[in-house]
């Protein structure tokens, strides 16, 4: 194993992501600025200008073109990086489906921000959640360190020949993206050992010509979709494999598809995605000291949805409080819905309480975490009350 010489710097999660793109030796960065992603691409532009990063910065005129250009880069056999938020992610929506169905191993960092209308530049997870049907792998991170580490892992996961699906690494706006913390930036040699050169299966190859990303109907279309579904389902295994290998080399493990905290013997468990897990963890500690049997599940992989780990950790638990920084308007929070579906058929299922909060930058302070857990502790087993908005 190469001698590791990591550096530790006090940087924002956005800068950590830019460092990861540099370390991943991406060939082309095609991205369009949007708050609060902007500092990622600004940092990358600076690294390139300063000669610290060997990549080409493609000055695209929109997010739709950004993702298309990334697909083009992949078709040519090189590695691409892009990043966006909210309206930009929505503008790319058509191409998200293209990328997943076409089995392009793209990596996109989404700095999760609410979607208009009302217009808001602040954070929630509606943008990423709204894209959950496109076929992308979606992983939600909590800290700058985790964001950096997951971008590196994302390339490994996406480019794995058993997966070949695009990966969206999600950050939370401002509270994560713009907050500085001590981040360990791995050594390039160690990253090179972990992340080898891109080895494509098929490209626009003049010596071996193919028609790629073509059309189909009927049973041909279905065949490819079944293969895509199988790869998406299998990707959970590869996410775990890559996470384990990363931990062996770099010493940091994030728990897998979900991260469990004080779940043993818990009567009530809070589930959340992203940065608010930090606050939730502190509240779990506080309430445990009071003798309350509460726990936390940080849901990291939203797609593929971690059905088995959730069934396992919530079996026998009395109630789950689900914090959704999103809502499928007209129904309920997406995490709550997917959780209920995943638990279907469990004998004696927990109550599922859906809380919609942290919308458009609203804080979910410790007392709101306590509120959700207290409600779960007193809930009727198996109950699924209508969702509750908790932003005050």
């Amino acid at each position, binding site marked *: 194993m190469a001698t590791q010489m990591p550096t530790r710097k006090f940087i924002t999660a956005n800068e950590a992501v830019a460092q990861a793109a540099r370390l991943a030796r991406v060939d082309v960065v095609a991205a369009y600025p949007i708050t609060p992603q902007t500092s990622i691409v600004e940092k990358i532009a600076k690294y390139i200008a300063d000669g610290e990063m060997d990549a080409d910065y493609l000055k695209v005129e929109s997010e739709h073109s950004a993702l298309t250009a990334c697909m083009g880069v992949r078709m040519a056999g090189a590695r691409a990086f892009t990043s966006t938020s909210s309206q930009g992610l929505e503008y790319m929506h058509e191409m998200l489906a293209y990328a997943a169905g*076409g089995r*392009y191993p793209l990596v996109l960092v989404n700095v999760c921000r609410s979607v208009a209308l009302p217009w808001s530049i602040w954070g929630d997870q509606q943008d990423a959640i709204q894209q959950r049907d496109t076929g992308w792998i979606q992983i939600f991170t909590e800290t700058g360190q985790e964001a950096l580490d997951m971008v590196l892992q994302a390339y490994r996961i996406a480019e794995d020949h058993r997966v070949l699906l695009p990966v969206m690494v999600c950050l939370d706006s401002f509270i994560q993206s713009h907050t500085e913390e001590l981040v360990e930036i791995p050594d390039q040699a160690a990253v090179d050992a972990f992340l080898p050169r891109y080895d494509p299966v*098929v490209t626009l190859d003049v010596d071996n*010509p*193919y028609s790629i990303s073509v059309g*189909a109907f009927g049973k041909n279309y279905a065949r490819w979709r079944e293969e895509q579904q199988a790869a998406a389902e299998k990707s959970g295994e590869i996410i775990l494999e890559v996470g384990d290998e990363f931990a062996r080399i770099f010493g940091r493990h994030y728990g897998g598809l979900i991260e469990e905290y004080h779940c043993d013997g818990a009567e009530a468990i809070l589930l959340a995605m992203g940065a608010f897990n930090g606050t939730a963890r502190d509240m779990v500690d506080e309430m445990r000291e009071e003798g309350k049997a509460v726990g936390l599940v940080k849901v990291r992989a939203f797609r593929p949805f971690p059905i088995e780990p959730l069934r396992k950790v919530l079996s026998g638990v009395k109630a789950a409080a689900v914090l959704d920084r999103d809502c499928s308007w007209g129904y309920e929070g997406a995490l709550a819905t997917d959780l209920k579906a995943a638990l279907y058929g469990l004998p004696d299922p927990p109550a599922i309480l859906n809380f919609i909060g942290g919308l458009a930058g609203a804080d979910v302070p410790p007392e709101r975490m306590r509120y959700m857990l207290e409600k779960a502790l007193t809930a009727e087993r198996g109950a699924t009350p209508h969702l509750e908005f908790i932003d005050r």
Partner: protein
Amino acid sequence: MKPEKQIPGPVSRAGTIPTRMGTWSTAKPVLKGKCTFCLFCWVFCPEGAISQDEANRKVTFNFEDCKGCGICVRECPTKAIEMVEQEGER
């Protein structure tokens, strides 16, 4: 070259022709007059269904790919080509 079935996603090998379009038209171009080998019909055929027979300095027609549009008949400066109904199995 990797077999297509091992490549994930919608991909087909270049130059795969499952159906020939010759069945679209029963009328096909036939050289009735003198071909001056000017190559006008050859360049204007959208389908590339005309070939150059350099040894005999005339063009030949590939009926399996010819859709019967008639551009060659129209563009031949010496009016050497005629569309002729072909007999036999469709």
